C-alpha cells in the first residue's frame, strides 16, 4: 500500500502506507526520516487545528470519502484553501480504495 506525497518544494515521495492509518499519521511517520515531509498536525487528529492541510490530486478527489461538515468548517483555520482539493489529512483513512493516493502538502502546516 502506497501514497504519493509532494513536499512543499515540489518533490514527490512515494511512501509505504498502512491500512487503517490516517494519511496525516503516515506522512508524520515518514517525516522522521524525511524532514521535507514535516507536518505540524498539532492536535493529533482531533479535527481541532487545521495544521495537517493537504491538496488531494485532481484524479483522486472523487475517489475518497467526502469531507464532513466539521472538516469543511475547520478548513477556515487553514491557509490557501482550495475549495475543490483541500483536505485535512487526519480525516482521510487509508483503505484499499485509497491505495496510491496522491496529495501535496499545503503551506502553513510546517512543523
Amino acid at each position, binding site marked *: 500500500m502506497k501514497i504519493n506525497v509532494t513536499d512543499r518544494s515540489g518533490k514527490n515521495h512515494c511512501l509505504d502506507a498502512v491500512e487503517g492509518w490516517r494519511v496525516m499519521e503516515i506522512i508524520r511517520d515518514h517525516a522522521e526520516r524525511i524532514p521535507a515531509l514535516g507536518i*505540524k498536525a*498539532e*492536535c*493529533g487528529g*482531533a479535527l*481541532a*487545528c*487545521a*495544521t495537517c492541510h493537504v491538496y488531494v490530486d485532481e484524479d483522486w478527489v472523487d475517489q475518497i470519502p467526502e469531507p464532513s461538515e466539521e472538516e*469543511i*468548517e475547520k*478548513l*477556515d*483555520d*487553514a*491557509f*490557501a*484553501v482550495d*475549495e475543490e482539493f483541500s483536505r485535512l489529512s487526519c480525516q482521510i483513512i487509508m483503505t484499499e480504495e485509497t491505495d496510491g493516493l496522491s496529495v501535496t502538502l499545503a*503551506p*502553513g502546516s*510546517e512543523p
Partner: protein
Amino acid sequence: MSYISHPPGQTHVTDALIIGAGPVGLFAVFELGLLDIKAQLIDILDRPGGQCTELYPEKPIYDIPALPVVTGQQLTDQLMEQIKPFGAQFHLNQMAEACVKTDTGFRVTTDQGSVIEAKVVIIAAGGGSFMPKKPPLPGIEAYEGTSVFYAVRNRSAFAGKNIVIAGGGDSALDWTLNLQPIAQHITLLHRRDDFRAAPHSVNAMREMVATDKMSLVIGNPTALQGNNGQLTGIDVTLADKSTTTLSADTLLAFYGLTMKLGPVATFGVGMQNNLITVNTENFETDVPGIFAIGDINTYPGKLKLILSGFHEGALAAQKVFRYVHPDRKWRFEYTTSSSNLQSKLGV
C-alpha cells in the same frame, strides 16, 4: 470556576512556579499541595485548561483512568475542583519570558511585567505557547505591528484605516462589526461564503454588505503589496481562481491559534528536538530545580498522554519537596488513610 487570578505587573513569591495551566500543570498543584508546597501558574491563555479548553473543549477524551468519557472542558473543571483546597494563584494572559537563577531559586518574568520568585520552576507548557497563526505570505514579518495585526489591542489605532479582515470565525466577525463604525472602509475576506461565527453577527455583517457599508470578498490572500512596512494592497485569489488586488493599509488576520515553543527554549535547560530532556526518576531537567512535565518533555519511552503527565507531576513533586522543605523528613502517605492529607484537602 472561581480562582485567584493576579493582574500583571506585580512581584510575587511562591514555592513552585508552574509554567502552563493545562491539565498536567493543574494536577501538579494537587501533588505539590499534599506536600505543603504552594504553587502559582502562568499561562498565555485567558483561562486554565491549555489545549483541553483551547483546542477541544467539547471533544471527548476516553483514556483518563476511571473516566470512561470526559470532554476537555469537563476535565479542566474537575481538576480545578480537585485543586481548590490548595488555593493556587494564576497569572493568565501572560507568557513566561525569562528565567534566571537567584540565591533562593529562580526569578521568572512575564511579557506583561509580572515577576515571580520561586524556589523551583516546573515547566508544563505542552506544545508551547498558543499564538495567533500567521498567514504564510512572503515578507509578512516586515508588516507585522505596523500594517498587519493578529489581535486588536487598541481599537482607536484602527480609526480611519482601510482594513481587510481575514477569517470567518467569531474574532473576524466581531472585529468587523466593532471596527466598521470607525474605519474608513472594511473588507471581510474569507475562503467561502459561509461563516461559523454567531448567526446574529453574520446577519449583521450581511446587512452592512447589502447596504454598502462594507465589502465581503470570497477568496484567499496570496501576497502583500507595500513597502517599508506600510501595506498598500493584498493580492487575492477569488473563488473562481481569478486574481485581484484589494486596496488596504491594514490587515487583521484571524486564523485561530497555534502552539510555538517560545521563550522556554532560552531558559538554559537541555533540549532535544524542541523537547526538554528530563530524568525519569523525578522529571528534573539538567538544571537543578527546574522540572519539565507533560507533552513538553522527552525521555526514553515517552508517551504524550495526559495520564503520563499526571504521573510525572506526582514524581516531580517528591523531589520538589526536598528543595522547598529541606529541613523536613519526606513521608509517603495515602489520601485514603492519612488524616494529615485529609485535613489539607479539607475533608
